[in-house]
């Protein structure tokens, strides 16, 4: 392309060609479009759900909806408290079981496993994230539920079965993010700890986990988001009775599962109330994402 230079005369800078300019501009706009689509998707869904669900606050009333303790659509009662409690119980229980399991998995992968073992375990954990939730639900229904039924009496539909299934489902989310958090701890810190005469366990417990603390909390919060939003697997094992939590072996219902259960036949106020549930789910998600953002800002602040 370029002409040969005579050594004496300084070469003039080339002007940007028109085609280069156009290509650069087109690419820039293409990528911006991609990002805009994602944002637009969230905004549109939020507007739609808000538009369809908003009337619930006038038709059922703020108190009847948010403060109501009975969800009986046939009698015009749309109190979400039992569902909210159901979601909370299912989610927190799943976290209590799943988070330690996932953090343990991440520690094993990041600090203990020899490379060959890691190359088998890590894809297996990632594969877990790819298993469709209906398969988890099916497994829960046919394998876990009968065991729970033996333990608690009844049919085995209820929070305990949901906990066990959800605990496994949130492992990939929490484990992958926790492993990233541990991986971002500088190697020098590991070496320093070992060089001080710390054992592997002491290094993990006293230095690495505290150093990765905020990243791990992030991971658990995102795992919580996954658990609270999970629908199909929960629906299949939780019993779907929109009543208050009465015991780990007794059916309850959650915000998500109730939407699916009622959607096929709901009309009028009932339908509006289901969109109202979606608004609540949306707000919870936003709260969790906000929490994660806040924490990561805190982490940057301490560095």
């Amino acid at each position, binding site marked *: 392309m370029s002409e040969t230079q005579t050594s004496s005369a300084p070469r003039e800078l080339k002007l940007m060609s028109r085609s280069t300019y156009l290509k650069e501009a087109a690419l820039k706009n293409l990528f911006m479009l991609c990002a805009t689509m994602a944002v637009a998707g969230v905004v549109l869904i939020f507007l739609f759900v808000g538009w369809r669900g908003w009337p619930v606050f006038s038709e059922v009333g703020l108190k009847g909806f948010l403060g109501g303790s009975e969800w009986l659509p046939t009698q015009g009662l749309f109190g979400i408290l039992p569902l909210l409690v159901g979601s909370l119980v299912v989610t927190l229980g799943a976290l209590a079981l799943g988070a330690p399991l996932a953090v343990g998995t991440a520690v094993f992968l990041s600090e203990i496993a*020899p*490379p060959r073992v890691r190359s088998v375990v890590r894809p297996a954990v990632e594969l877990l994230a790819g298993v469709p939730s209906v398969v988890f639900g099916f497994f829960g229904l046919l394998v876990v539920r009968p065991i729970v039924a033996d333990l608690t009496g009844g049919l085995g539909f209820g929070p305990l079965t949901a906990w066990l299934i959800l605990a496994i489902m949130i492992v990939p989310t929490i484990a992958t993010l926790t492993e990233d958090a541990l991986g971002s701890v*500088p190697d*020098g*810190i590991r*070496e*320093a*700890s*070992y*060089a*001080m*005469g*710390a*054992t592997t366990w*002491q290094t993990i417990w*006293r*230095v690495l986990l*505290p*150093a990765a603390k905020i990243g791990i909390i992030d991971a658990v919060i995102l795992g919580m988001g996954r658990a609270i939003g999970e629908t199909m697997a929960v629906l299949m094992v939780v019993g779907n009775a929109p009543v208050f939590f009465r015991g780990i072996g007794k059916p309850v219902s959650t915000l998500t599962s109730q939407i699916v259960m009622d959607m096929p036949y709901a009309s009028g106020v009932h339908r509006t109330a289901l969109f109202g549930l979606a608004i609540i789910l949306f707000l919870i998600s936003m709260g969790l994402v906000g929490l994660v953002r806040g924490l990561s800002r805190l982490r940057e602040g*301490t*560095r």
Partner: protein
Amino acid sequence: MSDTLDCAASPAVEGAAPEVKITVRDLDFYYGDFHALTGISCDIKARSVTAFIGPSGCGKSTFLRCLNRMNDLIPGTRVDGTVLLDGQDIYGPGVDPVDLRRRVGMIFQQPNPFPMSIYDNVAYGPRLHGVKKKSELDDIVRDSLERANLWKEVKDILDRGGLTLSGGQQQRLCIARVLAVQPDVLLMDEPCSAIDPTSVQKIEDLMAELKSSVTIIIVTHNMQQAARTSDETAFFLQERSGEPAVLVEFGRTADIFTSPKDKRTEDYITGRFG
């Protein structure tokens, strides 16, 4: 260097003379298939400063890490030969590398305080070893920081994060952290190459003070630093790439720098290569 030969001939456990802290005999080191060091033998004197010098990649850091078995943490490494600490083979059967590292502390090139308070950094080692009483920890923390010449600068900010200190202060914090477990030997792997000149001066002063109680081995790229700080010097060299590195010459620092016995040492000292 004639006493070296005498030591090698006598039984291993009895081998070390009183003033010798570490005895190395015929050490070979491998990273997987790569033969990194061969035939290293030397005696490190107690309560002195020994400098390891040589061009980049000549294995001096690798050798240093053989002395507290830090290389054990890298999968696929192998050590042949013997390393005696006070006459005991540190690679002997059943020797716990964790316990060894409590006696042979290490300072790294990059200051690496833990992301916790200054106090907790220094208290880390004692806590590992079971010291729980607050008053006892307070004493150890103060004493260690004083020995590291850092106490005056940090005594009012002990609860501040260790990473908020300057690079040179961080390195002295790391030294205090190691001193808190009362090691006999301090391995320093280019401790001054990532910090500013004023701090280098402070660390060199510190080495001079510490050597009355601790045996110090320092790897350095800086020949003036080796000449200034050390009593004895070891010169390592990898002659051709792909071949294992050797210990070319080991002796009193004054001799190495003024009248080296080996032509290769002389070439390196006078700046003809590396």
